């Protein structure tokens, strides 16, 4: 055995850029970007930002490489790119919210929420969305009533009961395929189903609910499945070892532990279908008055309402924006409720 002696290197101290350096560089880079934009023809805000961002990436990396060394330069480069990606991703979201708020607030009011569209014509500025809210709640509610239990039970079967084999594989594949069904196909399916079973004249909210349930179930299955897999096996074994039967273990330990995640998954699924337009256009159509009965007659829904108002143009466009704002608010409200539910039920943290 030969001893190879390597003299230990002392830990070198590195000079670091001050904390304000990236911001200073950014400011400078934006200035240069503006200048470049001006030189390339006419000054545009977008151009200045774009050039500025490019200059910033190059400048901060080079500066860091000179002062701090290669490892830190790589770190700066990666940080800058990741931040840029985040900002890029946030731009559409923020601008969407701003846009809907700006145009939606034109007509959004308490009266708007409590009025329907009976007797409203082209250029009149009255009219509201009450009938569409009721319709959306009916259709989405009925759809959830079918899709949530069905989805959760399917997921429980897949995770807790199914033995590896053709049946389990078939269900998994079918769920995957169903996730990818275009919504218009679900609408056509529901329309045809009711045409065959009930008759061609039948129009009702429940048709839309069936179409949406078709879209929602696989989403619920998928997210609940993931959540159930996250529950540690040790908890199931702990319950079995206490002489708890399997079904009680599933209900009181597995579902109870995963309830926070399940709620979130279900909310995402609801948010996914509440804005569906195409299948509802095909099945439930649109009316001007409030229809309290989801099993008889056409029913108005928010997405279709927005579509119709926008298509009509003129003064109706404002109503379309206000309707869109209402829809977003409903989804936000649901999300808030889900947050509260999952906070209340989530496993209590340490200490």
């Amino acid at each position, binding site marked *: 055995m030969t001893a190879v002696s390597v003299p230990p290197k002392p830990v070198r101290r590195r000079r670091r850029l001050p904390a304000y350096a990236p911001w200073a560089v950014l400011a400078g880079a934006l200035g240069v970007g503006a200048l470049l934009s001006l030189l390339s023809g006419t000054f545009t805000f977008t151009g200045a930002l774009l050039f500025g961002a490019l200059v910033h990436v190059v400048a901060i990396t080079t500066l860091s490489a000179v002062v701090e060394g290669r490892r830190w330069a790589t770190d700066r480069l990666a940080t800058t790119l990741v931040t840029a990606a985040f900002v890029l991703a946030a731009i559409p979201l923020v601008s969407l919210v701003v846009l809907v708020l700006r145009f939606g607030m034109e007509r959004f009011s308490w009266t708007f929420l409590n009025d329907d569209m009976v007797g409203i014509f082209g250029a009149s500025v009255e009219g509201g969305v009450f009938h569409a809210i009721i319709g959306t709640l009916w259709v989405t509610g009925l759809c959830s009533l079918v899709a949530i239990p069905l989805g959760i039970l399917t997921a429980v079967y897949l995770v807790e009961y199914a033995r590896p084999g053709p049946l389990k594989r078939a269900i998994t594949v079918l769920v995957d395929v169903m996730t990818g069904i275009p919504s218009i196909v679900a609408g056509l399916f529901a329309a045809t189903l009711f045409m065959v079973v009930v008759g061609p004249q039948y129009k009702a909210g429940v048709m839309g609910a069936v179409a949406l349930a078709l879209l929602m179930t696989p989403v619920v299955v998928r997210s609940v499945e993931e959540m159930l897999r996250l529950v540690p096996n*040790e908890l199931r*074994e*702990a319950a079995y070892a*206490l*002489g*708890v*039967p399997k079904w009680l273990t599933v209900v009181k*330990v597995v579902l109870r532990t995963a309830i926070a995640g399940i709620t979130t998954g279900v909310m995402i699924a609801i948010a996914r279908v509440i804005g569906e337009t195409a299948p509802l256009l095909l099945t439930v159509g649109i009316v001007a008055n409030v229809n309290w009965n989801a099993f008889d007659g056409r029913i108005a829904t928010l997405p279709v309402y927005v579509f119709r108002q926008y298509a009509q143009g003129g003064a109706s466009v404002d109503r379309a924006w206000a309707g869109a704002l209402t829809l977003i608010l409903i989804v936000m409200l649901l999300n808030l409720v889900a947050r509260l539910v999952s906070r209340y039920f989530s496993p*209590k943290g340490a200490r």
Partner: protein
Amino acid sequence: MSKRIDVSDLDVYYGDFLAVEGVTMTIEARSITALIGPSGCGKSTFLRTLNRMHEVIPGARVEGKAVMDGVDLYGKHVDPVEVRRQIGMVFQRPNPFPTMSIADNVLAGVKLNNRRLPRSEQEEIVERALTGANLWNEVKDRLNRPGSSLSGGQQQRLCIARAIAVRPQVLLMDEPCSALDPISTLAIEDLMNELKDDYTIVIVTHNMQQAARVSDRTGFFNIAGTGKPGRLIEIDDTSVMFSSPSQKATEDYISGRFG
């Protein structure tokens, strides 16, 4: 409140793989039986067959007999849920239910089975079980805090309290101290010594000093090689096993010559 188990010719399978072969032993009532042996030799697998936890794993099955109280645990009409109510288990890693408070964790065996008890009786069970597990004094002022707020050693004792709250006949412990520091280990070993007055205890351990310290009888498992089934080499009184075992392999293992 404790019973002996007579195991005869027990083979344990994972699917087609024979994991443990031909175990015959008697687990005496009101005593501690320790199972030792190198990793992968089937001690834990064997332990889990005693309360039918083994079959929870898909494809796992058991052949042979394990008779408690004149009833074969693997008999035709025996419900595994009933077996597990009689034979409790403590796992290697503490696993309190994260959604439950300390008190609810102790009452888990009652509450998860949808049984309703008057409040006074519940409080009595909680105090009895936590006192039995040597944890009462540490947690009596915070019974409503989540079970996960306790330290690792306390969590493990909470799991023991949870197991003895349902008054089982036998308590199986699968390396209950392997994740614990020496002080918590000592607390749990003391606890086992107290518990053996009332319970039959079977403990799997990698720690031979622990086996020597706490157990009355010791069984040595060994495996001939990877892919081969584990076997019970011998079982005897702990003092005999650690001073003059009849098998060479046992002596080698105990004296640290292999494994």
